[in-house]
């Protein structure tokens, strides 16, 4: 029997290696694309919008974190910081009416699919003006009219639902596809495997995307799952891909190609996008499971800094113009905080609203 923590019986050594101080990454990033935005079919204007969006996601969450720390709202707060290229590249690659569903790390997805900073911040504050009327909070941002079906709080629970969205699209022959995002932790849930099997069996037009950010809460990917994640698709005879998620062009290029194929052939696709979560799992995470050095390594590949450098190097915008965008976003986020603070909480009657579409029924309601 193992009696020391270092012995690899149920306590395998992960990315933390305090003894030799070596930086062991929890997830290795493949090379990004070397194509220019023009080669990818993106206009200068697209680039500006992408930068604006990624910067908004970043500043929205940094400010949300401050507000949380100030005690402005409670509950969980799972930050997407570091992963913004995934949401942004994907949404630019998909059609606007393609269906997106994700897990609880959902703020970035909501913002890029039309939730305003105001509606998002108000939701975090639990206000009636929030995107989900204050009923969902951080984990349940949604904007269904723009085909963002929301964030879900049970790890892997929304994966079959993503398949169901695709099922309905195929059934209705409406040309839409769905894209279902989840973390590397969800890869270990049975729901994924049941859904992949049925998706391949029924050729559901859905892209199942693992945002491998290196950690399932505090457990490194190398410690919670075996083999290469994207290779799981092989067992189902499903097409798969794995690429760099710290570069928005790489995400855009691959997701566009995959989306076209999924739409044309009506097939599922399994994708692993490698990225990195800068912050803890949630706000209460002391992050003892990783080294500061590891974090710094990934921050060198920051998607927003990378994009900014590209925009300046390629002279798409001048430094001053980039700063103007950043100031505009900063103002937008501050206005959102003001809006959230000033917005009313839901009225008491709201407690009983939105449970039913048809005739409501509440057992023993006084």
């Amino acid at each position, binding site marked *: 029997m193992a009696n020391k923590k270092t012995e690899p019986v149920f306590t395998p050594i992960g990315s933390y290696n305090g003894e030799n101080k070596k930086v062991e990454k929890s997830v290795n990033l493949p090379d990004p694309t070397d194509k220019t935005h023009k080669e990818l079919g993106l206009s200068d204007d697209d680039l500006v919008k992408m930068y604006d969006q990624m910067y908004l996601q970043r500043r929205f969450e940094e400010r949300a974190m401050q507000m949380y720390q100030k005690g402005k709202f409670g509950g969980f707060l799972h930050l997407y910081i570091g992963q913004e290229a995934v949401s942004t590249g994907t949404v630019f690659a998909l059609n606007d009416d393609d*269906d997106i*569903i994700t897990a609880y790390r959902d703020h970035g997805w909501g913002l890029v699919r039309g939730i305003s900073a105001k509606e998002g911040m108000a939701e975090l504050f639990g206000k009636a003006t*929030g*995107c*989900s*009327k*204050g*009923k*969902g909070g951080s984990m*349940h941002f*949604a*904007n*269904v*009219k723009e085909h963002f*079906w*929301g964030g*879900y709080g*049970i790890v892997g*629970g*929304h*994966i*079959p*639902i*993503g*398949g*169901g*969205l*695709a*099922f*309905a*699209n195929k*059934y*209705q022959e409406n040309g839409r596809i769905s894209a279902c995002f989840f973390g590397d932790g969800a890869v270990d849930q*049975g*729901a994924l495997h*049941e*859904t992949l*099997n*049925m998706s391949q*069996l*029924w050729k559901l037009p859905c892209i199942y995307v693992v945002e491998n950010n290196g950690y399932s809460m505090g457990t490194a990917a190398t410690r919670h799952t075996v083999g290469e994640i994207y290779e799981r698709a092989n067992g189902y005879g499903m097409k798969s891909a794995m690429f760099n998620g710290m570069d928005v062009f790489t995400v855009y290029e691959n997701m566009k190609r995959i989306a076209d194929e999924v739409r044309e052939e009506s097939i599922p696709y399994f994708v692993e996008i490698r990225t990195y979560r800068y912050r803890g799992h949630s706000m209460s995470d002391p992050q003892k499971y990783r080294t500061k050095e590891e974090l710094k390594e990934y921050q060198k590949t920051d998607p927003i800094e990378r994009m900014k450098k590209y925009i300046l190097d390629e002279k798409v915008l001048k430094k001053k113009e980039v700063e103007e965008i950043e100031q505009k976003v900063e103002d937008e986020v501050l206005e959102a905080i003001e809006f959230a603070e000033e917005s009313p909480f839901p009225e008491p009657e709201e407690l009983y*609203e*939105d*449970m*039913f*579409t*048809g005739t409501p*029924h*509440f*057992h*023993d309601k006084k």
Partner: protein
Amino acid sequence: MAELQFREALNQAIDEEMGRDERVFIMGEEVAEYDGAYKVTEGLLDKYGFKRVIDTPISELGFAGIGVGAAMNGLRPIVEFMTFNFAVLAADQIINHASKVRYMLGGQASVPIVFRGPNASAGQLGATHSVAYDSMYAHFPGMAVIYPSEPDDAKGLLKSAIRSDDTVIFMESEQMYGMRGEVSEEEDYIIPIGKAKVKREGDDVTIVATGKMYHIAKQAAAQLEKDGVEAEIIDPRTIKPLDIEAIVKSVKKTNRCVVVDEAHPFGGVAAETGFLIQREAFDYLDAPVQRVTLPDVSAPFSKPLFDLWLPDAKQVIEAVNAVTYRN
């Protein structure tokens, strides 16, 4: 009226609703080529094809969730479980998703889905195939729970369930599928969800029972009649919303009540009904409300033990004797 088996009544309901609404489809284990594990879906594959009658792998969690997603995105799925004992594997989709999605998204989505299949015990099937789940699902807000006892109720209520804009749990019984009964031939026969039915009138005691237990109550009532006791049987048909007004009305007339429930005793339909009766009709009661339930024990296999375990007419009569002080 036409005499139909319970399964035929269900089949008619599904067929009629699939015929009137293209968005309705049925999925589950063995529903298509096998014609249904209990032949509820017999003939539907031939009529509607593989697109709308879909055999699933044995993946309850997965196909329940695909149903939920399809319901959110414009369809009206009927998800058949071979038994609700297997639906436990899909509990995350039913409890955490189907019943909650609308609320947590602030009303932005609907989940018009029917989860149906047999509930509770069906003879000597052992501990994992014998549980009544109606009160468990009724515990959670956001879903209706229906557990009819006769073919007529089954047809009218299943049609309502399929048309509901919200999630419905619809429970049947392996042991009732072959049971025959008169079914209304009224075109587009609909029974509203949430309405109890007085199935036997009587002045001496109220017996509340639904699903398979209704038939136990009926047997008991026939015995009691011979002894000069006239029982009134109320079949709620819908566990949730529970038609407590109908039950209380009857109790105010009879002043005595027995609830028969094929679930374990803790926190079940019997417990809830009993609580509501004491609160709403306290001054009318001539005896404490009694219940007949399973014991707090898992289902045994051995026949004598199983018979001891399952509520029967004798236990119902004993409970009636207790509330009428006829011991």
